[in-house]
C-alpha cells in the first residue's frame, strides 16, 4: 500500500475537562476516499480543525508527507497541501463569485504581496478561476455577489474554492448539508471526479449512507472523540461498534 499523505498520531484536544478528540491515530493514503462518520458531537469537525490548524492540539501530532505540521500556522499548512472546506458556509460574502475563486488561486501562486500591479489584469489567474467556476457549473454566476447566491450555490462555491486550491488532502465537512436534491448530486459528482486523481487523499464527513456506500473506500468511525472503527465499508458497517451505535438506523438519523 502507498505511503500515507496525512497521518495523525494520538491526536488529542481537550476543552476544559471535555476531551473532544481522544488519541486518534489514523493514516490517509493517496487515491483513497475516507468517510468519517459518527453521531453529532462525536468530534469530526474538531478532528478536521486539528488537522487544518484552526485549533491547536493538546497532545499528539499531525504529519503531512512525513513532515510534522502540528504547530504550523493555518496558511502554511494550506500551502503545503491541506485543503479544508467548512461545514458552515464560510466565504467572502460581499465579493463576487469569481473574486472568491480568484483569491484562492492568487494565494496558491503567492501573488498576494504584489502592491503595484492591477489584480484584474492578471489574466492567468482570472482564466484559471473561470475554469474552476465552469467545472462547478457556477460560470453563469461569476459576477454575482456571494451573499446573493442560493444556499446550494454557496455550497458549490465552497467546493470550488477547494478545487481551486488543488491540495494534496481534500477535507469536506458535510458538503451537501442543507442542499436540495437537485444540487447535492452536482457536489457529489465533483467529489467523485476528484477521487479519480490518484495523487490526492480525500476525507469526507458525511451522514448519508448511500453517499458513503457509493464513494468511500474506507470508513472511520469516531465516537466520543475516539476512533471506534476503521476499515473497508462493508466490514465497518457490519462491525459490532457500528451495529451497536447505529443499530438498524441510517446514519443520517443519528
Amino acid at each position: 500500500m502507498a505511503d500515507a499523505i496525512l497521518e495523525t498520531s494520538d491526536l488529542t484536544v481537550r476543552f476544559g475537562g471535555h476531551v473532544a478528540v481522544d488519541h486518534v491515530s489514523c493514516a490517509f493514503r493517496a487515491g483513497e476516499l475516507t468517510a468519517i462518520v459518527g453521531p453529532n458531537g462525536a468530534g469530526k469537525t474538531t478532528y478536521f480543525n486539528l488537522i487544518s490548524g484552526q485549533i491547536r492540539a493538546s497532545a499528539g501530532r499531525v504529519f503531512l508527507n512525513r513532515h510534522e505540521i502540528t504547530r504550523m500556522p493555518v496558511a502554511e499548512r494550506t500551502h503545503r497541501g491541506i485543503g479544508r472546506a467548512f461545514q458552515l458556509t464560510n466565504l467572502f460574502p460581499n465579493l463576487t463569485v469569481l473574486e472568491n475563486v480568484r483569491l484562492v488561486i492568487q494565494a496558491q501562486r503567492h501573488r498576494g504581496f504584489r502592491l503595484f500591479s492591477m489584480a484584474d489584469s492578471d489574466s492567468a489567474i482570472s482564466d484559471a478561476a473561470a475554469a474552476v467556476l465552469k467545472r462547478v457549473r457556477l460560470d453563469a454566476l461569476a459576477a454575482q455577489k456571494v451573499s446573493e447566491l442560493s444556499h446550494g450555490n454557496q455550497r458549490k462555491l465552497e467546493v470550488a474554492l477547494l478545487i481551486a486550491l488543488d491540495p494534496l488532502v481534500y477535507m469536506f465537512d458535510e458538503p451537501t448539508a442543507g442542499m436540495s436534491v437537485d444540487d447535492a448530486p452536482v457536489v457529489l459528482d465533483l467529489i467523485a471526479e476528484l477521487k479519480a486523481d490518484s495523487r490526492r487523499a480525500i476525507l469526507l464527513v458525511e451522514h448519508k449512507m448511500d453517499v458513503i456506500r457509493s464513494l468511500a473506500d474506507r470508513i472511520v468511525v469516531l465516537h466520543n472523540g475516539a476512533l471506534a472503527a476503521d476499515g473497508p465499508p462493508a466490514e465497518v458497517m457490519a462491525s459490532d461498534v457500528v451495529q451497536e451505535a447505529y443499530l438498524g438506523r441510517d446514519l443520517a438519523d443519528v
Partner: protein
Amino acid sequence: MLTRLISGDRPRSIVLTIILLAILIGLALAPFLFPGIRSLETAARICIFIVLVASYDLMLGYGGIVSFAHTMFFGMGAYGVALASVHMGRGFDALIVGTLAGAVAAAVLALLIGLFSLRVRAIFFAMITLAVASAVAVLVSQLSSLTGGEDGLNYQIPRALTPAFKFADGRLFDVSLNGKLLNYYLVFFSALILFLLLLRIVNSPFGRVLQAIRENDFRAEAIGYRVVYYRTAATCISAAVAAIAGSLFAIWLRYVGPDTTLSFEIMIDILLMVVIGGMGTMYGAVIGAAVFIIAQNYLQELMAVAASATAKVPVLPLFFDPDRWLLWLGVLFVLSVYFFPTGIVGRLRQGR
C-alpha cells in the same frame, strides 16, 4: 490610459464622477479660481487630508483594522520635516531627509505595533494604538527642548517655497507668481500622486487580500494568506503615507505643534471624514475631506449670514449665532451618517 491611472477603479456613478472632477479641478486651479490666502489654506489642507484620510481608509475600509494612531504617524512626518529643518538648516535636503526619516520611522513603529498586537485580536490592536498614540503625544509635549513642547516648532523652509520668492515678473490672472504658489503645487501634486498610488494599492492583488481579510479573516487564512502579515503590511503602508502627508503639512505651514498634528481631535476628524465619504472606497476620502474641511472653515460665515438674515425673527438668530457652529457641524454629521450609512460615495453608487 486614464483608466490605468485610476487603476481601473471607476467612480461607477455619474454624479460621483462629476463631484470628483469638480474637486480635482477646484484643487488644481485653486490659486486662480479662489484667490486669497484663506482659500488657499483651505485648499492645501484639503489636499493633505485627502491623503491622510485615504491612507486611513486603506486600513479601516479595506483591511478592517481600527487604529487610533493615525495622527501619531501624521505627526511623525511633520516633526521629521520640522526637526530636520531646525537642525540641518533651511533647504530641500532637510525636507527630503525629514520626510524620509518620518516615513521610515512611522513604518517601523507600525511594524512593531502590528507584529506585537495584530496577532492577537483586532480590538487589541485598536487599544494598543490608542495607548501608544497617547504616550507619544505626552512625550512630545514633555520633551520641549527637542520638540518645542506645547508651543511646537517654527522653522524656515527653502526660499523657493515662500511668498518672498518671485519666480516670474508680473501676475497671472491676477495671482502673483511666488514661492507660495510653488509650495501649493508641491502639496497638490504630491497629494495627487499619493492618492493615485493608494488607489493602485487597493486594486492590486494585495488590496484584494485585504478585502478578503475584512470580509472573513478566518477563511482568508484557510486559503493560504497569513492574515497577520497582511494586516501589518497594510498598517505600515498606511503609516508611511500618513507620515508623508504630515511632512507636506509641515512644509506648507512652516510650523508644527501638537495641536496641528497630534491631537486627538484630528483623529476624530479623520474618522468622521472616512465615514462621511464612505469607507472602503478611496474616493470617499476625497469627498469626506473636501466636505468636512469646507464645512469646518466656512460654516461660521454661512451662519453669520443666516443670523443677520433672520435677525428680525425671534429666537431663530440664537440658533444661527456663529458661536454655535460646532453644534451645527455635529448635527450635519449625525444626519449624514444617519441618511448615508455607507457614506456619500456608497449612497451615490446605490442611486445609480
